[in-house]
């Protein structure tokens, strides 16, 4: 356990600088976005009210009051999230390849550590998941802050006030932060599984080089087919026999099978096949 914690802390440290840059970028761009978007709206409001001689109430009736969702649907809000997501997806691969292609092939030392090699694998996977959850937490922390800025920027008759819960629920944000804790566990459990599948594919490539690329892609495809098999069977049989709760159970079982298969295969590859 101690070994694992050390490895995990080590993996986190190695990405920490870039990670903090991502966090800072998100905070700065989103907060700037609230200010820009509300100013834009107020500018348009003032202009229309003056040019067309409308009252505030008439303007709001015609053009609608601004809600926080108008901001969350803009690039100011979605852009940083997309960049962070892309960076972490890229890092799922880089977390392995940097050890091979670094200045001094670092993987040598990692794999020679007097600990199970699977610990290295789990430390890398856990650090990815932790960093994703960390970014989600940052978003949860700055949302109330942004909402407060939003309220202070607009006079009350020009805005629709919303609670944080509702901002999340009534938005694509509920894909990242689902409404119930069960869903949260299911979503991020699936995410963890996806990371393990990609790791296995990377290890295939590291073990068998060119042939390994095909094996890796094949493994991703097989995992995908297993996970989607209930949906695929519905398409081909044109009939679906399971009730929703049974489907959920089946999907969880399939997910556990794919996860276990990935761990077992990775363990095998790391111990027997991987070449440095």
């Amino acid at each position: 356990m101690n070994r694992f914690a050390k490895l995990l802390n080590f993996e986190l440290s190695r990405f920490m600088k870039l990670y903090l840059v991502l966090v800072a970028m998100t905070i700065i761009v989103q907060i700037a976005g609230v200010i820009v978007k509300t100013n834009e709206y107020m500018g348009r409001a003032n202009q229309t009210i003056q040019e067309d001689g409308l009252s505030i109430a008439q303007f709001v009736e015609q053009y609608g009051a601004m809600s926080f969702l108008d901001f969350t649907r803009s690039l100011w809000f979605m852009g940083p999230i997309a960049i962070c997501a892309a960076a972490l997806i890229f890092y799922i691969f880089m977390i392995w390849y940097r050890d091979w292609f670094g200045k001094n092939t670092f993987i040598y030392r990692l794999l020679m550590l007097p600990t199970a090699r699977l610990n290295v694998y789990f430390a890398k996977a856990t650090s990815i998941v932790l960093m994703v959850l960390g970014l989600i937490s940052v978003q949860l922390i700055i949302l109330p802050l942004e909402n407060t800025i939003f309220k202070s920027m607009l006079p009350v008759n020009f805005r629709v006030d919303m609670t944080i819960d509702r901002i999340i629920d009534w938005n694509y944000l509920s894909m990242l932060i689902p409404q119930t804790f069960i869903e949260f566990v299911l979503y991020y459990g699936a995410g963890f599984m996806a990371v393990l599948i990609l790791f296995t594919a990377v290890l295939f490539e590291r073990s068998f080089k060119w042939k390994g690329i095909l094996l890796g892609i094949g493994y991703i495809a097989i995992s995908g087919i297993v996970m989607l098999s209930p949906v695929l069977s519905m398409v081909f049989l044109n009939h679906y026999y399971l009730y929703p709760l049974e489907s959920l159970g089946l999907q969880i079982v399939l997910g556990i099978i794919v996860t276990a298969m990935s761990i077992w295969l990775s363990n095998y590859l790391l111990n027997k096949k991987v070449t440095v």
Partner: protein
Amino acid sequence: MKRYWRLIAIVSVVVLTIGTFYIQSAMAANNLPDITIETVNGDEDELDSVVINGTYTVGNGMGEFVELNSDGSTYDSEQSFIEGLQTRPFNERTNQLQEDYRGFMRGKGRNTASYLETEDTLAYTEVINQSVSGPSSDMEFDISVLDKESGETLSFTVPVPNRAMYAQVLVEDVQIMDGALKVFTRNYSKDGGGEKHLYSFDIANQEINGNESLMSTESQDQNTSIHISIVSNSDITAANQFIIFEKTKRPITRGPENNQGIDSEQPADEGTQEFIVYNLETGEQKTLDLPETLSGKRVTDREHSTLYFEGEGNIIHYNVETEQVTDETELPVNGTAEFTRIANGKVYMLTGPENQNNFQRLMILDLQSGDTLYEGEIKPEEPVENGALLDFNGLHIE
């Protein structure tokens, strides 16, 4: 410990933030107003069978569904994940059937019109193997009949006759008459035409024994549009001797040509109605000869062989079998009904709000005497927040 500060920092931020968020959203009320039906006068027990559906919207079209009954209101977001899974897509009738006949309902669709439930039988018919884009020549009737007493299910499939002709076949009602399963469908031809069709099946021998086109849904001349729909009971799964089709003809007014050289076609809002009744016992169809007083009146609901027309300040009862006006129910003057349902010998009316400071009202009247049995106001317990709109636009009687 100092060496692990990054790990400790990230883990504590994650656990604290996400933990707080979920604990707080589970504990705190969701800030949506609780809504109750406040009795103005009458017997509250009348409310037991009433379900009112509505929406709560904020700003530009964001919002959620809310359901209201005698126990109060339930918003969509108040459902747990598991509850939501079981009831979505939301269909009260098929949800009920799934609960009562779990084995039979397995793998069956959610189109309520596909079901017939009588005291001793539950029947289901759907047309399977049809896809909107692909070839549809594999279309089959998928039929199941459950004998409630013995618990035995009879299932069989029958190819749709002349299926190469059709692009799509939709089941619109299912009935059983003298051991024969009668399936009313709307058939869309590949050449663009459409018709109302009746298929008949011999249940005991599991074969098709009847196939007739009832009426074309296409207009003969270019200047009218035709729309035919089935007027069903509030509960379309109930048995009925009469199937009533409402045929609406609307003249098409042609606007000036637009810039692509195509003249715009606009069916008029008002049209002429015609009711065609199919008698399952005799297999005959007749067009109702409505008295002058009913022409142009809208049908609000139907119960067995009675059609209820919306008159001026009253509801006119019309029997399709005897083709007579049988009764009238006088309505109290206050409030125009947005939604009217007739069931269990009562009239259920949901009125629209007359102005912004007013609440929607629910009224329950006796169908025979027109006496008000219940009157209530739909009231949010706390005022609806700034910019939000609460609107009830559905009324169901269980």
